């Protein structure tokens, strides 16, 4: 069955508008998120996932949000996470301090409270650099 040019043209117009609307709101959303507009605090979902992976000692959560690494680095990471699982840490708090962005890079800074297996409380910061949906630097 052939659709009339009027119908195909109308559907095409709606689809082009929908695509443009989606892209515009994505772009505006990123800018709003980075600048803490519209009530947001600027926290990136990628940075939050990274922090969850770290605190829950789950390398699976981190794999997709880190730049591609060679097999030796990935094996080392798994060794490190197995060792840290044995140390039995308890997260006490996770606070997003804030961040900023420039070009394609954004910085997200957290304060982390932990209790080690020996009962010692630690309170330390972590600054993440996010680019193209990956955490490229953590310190």
């Amino acid at each position, binding site marked *: 069955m052939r659709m009339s040019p009027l119908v195909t043209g109308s559907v095409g117009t*709606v689809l082009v508008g929908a695509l443009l609307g989606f892209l515009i709101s994505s772009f505006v959303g990123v800018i709003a998120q980075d600048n803490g507009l519209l009530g947001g605090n600027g926290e990136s979902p990628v940075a939050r996932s990274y922090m969850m992976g770290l605190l829950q000692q789950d390398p699976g959560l981190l794999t997709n949000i880190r730049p591609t690494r060679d097999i030796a680095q990935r094996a080392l990471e798994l060794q490190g996470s197995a060792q840290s699982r044995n140390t039995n840490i308890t997260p006490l708090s996770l606070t997003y301090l804030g961040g900023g962005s420039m070009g394609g890079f954004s910085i997200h800074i957290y304060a982390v409270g932990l209790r080690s297996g020996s009962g010692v409380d630690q309170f330390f910061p972590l600054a993440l650099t996010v680019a193209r949906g990956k955490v490229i630097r953590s310190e």
Partner: protein
Amino acid sequence: MSSAASLAQRTTGVSETRAVATLALFGVGLLAGIVVHSLTDRGPGENPYPSLPKVEEPAIARDVVTAIAADDATTLAKLLSQDQLNDLGTALQPITDVRGAKFVGAVESEGRFLVAYTVTGKDDTGNDFIVGFVLRVSNDQVVGVN
């Protein structure tokens, strides 16, 4: 009115109607795209851990960052120890020419403050960069730089 003039008038009317309809359909699509995005963009997940309340920027941290932003090495040398200056240098890499520093937030736990900043500037080759660093403050003294 001649038949040619009547035809021209009708054609113009149809074109206008068609243009308005096309714009309206485009607007409907645009709105649908925005709605779909707002439904699919979930933002950061829920934080399962407690968050500490934000506090004011400690004065000593403000002094340090003012010196950094003003490129005032003399004042900075008086405010930070040698180890802290080394740590600051590492935290600022690759920026060698600081253009601005911004306080983004601070929290306190048992008298220990973590005070976060972002710094913008240029590296050796003139490329723009942004980095983040944190001053640890305790008893009105900077006790560490991360």
